[in-house]
């Protein structure tokens, strides 16, 4: 399971060899985002990682700890990071948010785009080693790049995790977490996307902004792959369902591309109609996925309650 959510991918990478990581991914298909100036974004000071922090500690034991001090300066927090890395405690991994703009291993963002991004980091022989499970990179990175990407990150966050020993979540806690926020009819991403499209329908002269409004939609779409982990957890390995989930992920990617194309096109009204139709299609696919997931959960629950 890679490329779901950079923060969670770091945790999954740290625990999956000894523990079941799938419960951690429950609900990630509806991960947080906000709408700011008609843009759907998951980068904001208003969004925290508290939901995942609380959930991890609730399910696996209180082993995920936030070390980053939001009230402190970047430089002081960087000193904390250096100290943590120098400590090299057994079974402790450091998770930190860096800005990909300063990291040469990611050519799409390096010196081009500011993207806060979580990675695992440690020091070996006084050299910084990054393990980036989301982007599939593992290797040495110069301290200058680490420092720049940490201190110039417009957001900022850092955690450490004692990844052994943990407890494996039991069925009662899994049920509690799953039922807490699973609602078949809810689809905030569709709802907010429709509101944005409606805004552009009423303001066609501004429709060039579609590209920016939905520039992060592909990443939010990728998070729908967490449905597959949930189906596996609830012991439903139907290939048909997995295909539906993939159709959903590709559909959101496709929607993002259509938004870019629509923003470049002269026939904005026709393209907006296509986008509305695409949203309805995605809404139907996701509802079916959710109904199947709920049925799988009910069956699983009967076996384990």
């Amino acid at each position, binding site marked *: 399971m890679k490329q779901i959510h950079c923060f969670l991918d770091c945790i999954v990478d740290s625990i999956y060899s000894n523990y079941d990581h799938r419960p951690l991914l429950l609900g990630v298909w509806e991960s947080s985002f906000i709408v700011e100036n008609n843009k759907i974004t998951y980068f904001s000071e208003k969004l925290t990682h508290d939901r995942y922090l609380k959930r991890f500690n609730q399910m696996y034991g209180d082993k995920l700890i936030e070390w980053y001090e939001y009230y402190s300066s970047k430089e002081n927090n960087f000193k904390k990071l250096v100290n943590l890395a120098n400590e090299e405690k057994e079974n402790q991994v450091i998770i930190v948010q860096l800005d990909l703009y300063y990291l040469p291993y990611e*050519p*799409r963002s390096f010196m*081009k785009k500011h993207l806060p991004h979580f990675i695992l980091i440690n020091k070996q022989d006084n050299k910084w080693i990054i393990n980036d499970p989301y982007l599939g990179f593992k290797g040495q990175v110069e301290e200058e790049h680490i420092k720049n990407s940490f201190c110039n990150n417009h957001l900022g966050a850092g955690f450490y995790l004692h990844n052994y020993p943990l407890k494996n979540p039991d069925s009662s806690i899994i049920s509690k977490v799953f039922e807490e926020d699973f609602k078949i009819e809810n689809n905030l991403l569709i709802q907010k996307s429709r509101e944005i499209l409606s805004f552009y329908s009423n303001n066609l002269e501004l429709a060039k902004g579609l*590209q920016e409004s939905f*520039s992060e939609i*592909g990443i939010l779409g990728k998070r729908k792959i967490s449905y597959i982990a949930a189906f596996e957890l609830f012991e439903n390995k139907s290939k048909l369902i997995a295909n539906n989930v993939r159709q959903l992920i*590709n559909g959101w*990617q*496709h929607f*993002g*591309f*259509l938004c*870019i*194309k629509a923003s*470049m096109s002269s026939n904005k009204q026709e393209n907006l109609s*296509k986008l509305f139709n695409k949203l309805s299609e995605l809404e139907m696919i996701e509802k079916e996925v959710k109904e199947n997931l709920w049925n799988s959960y009910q069956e699983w629950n009967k076996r384990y309650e």
Partner: protein
Amino acid sequence: MTFLKQMNTEDIANNLKSNIVNLLNRPEIADEISDQTELFNMGMDSVILVSLVVQIEQEFEIFFEDEELVAENFQTIELIVERIIEKMN
């Protein structure tokens, strides 16, 4: 269109390479890109991909269906050339 029909695979690939290098704004990678290079590893993102699609549609007088607009169809120059030739024929 006659001129376009006379273009062979190599001509199309060279034309694409030049467009991609310009869109990426990285002239220094022109010699690094082969027909099999993963374009997303060279800095291609969704905006560049769609810009490339629009350029291809205009230059080759072809049209990509909305359903074809997915990243896996545009991963390498080789894949894109295959699609262009398929559409031109």
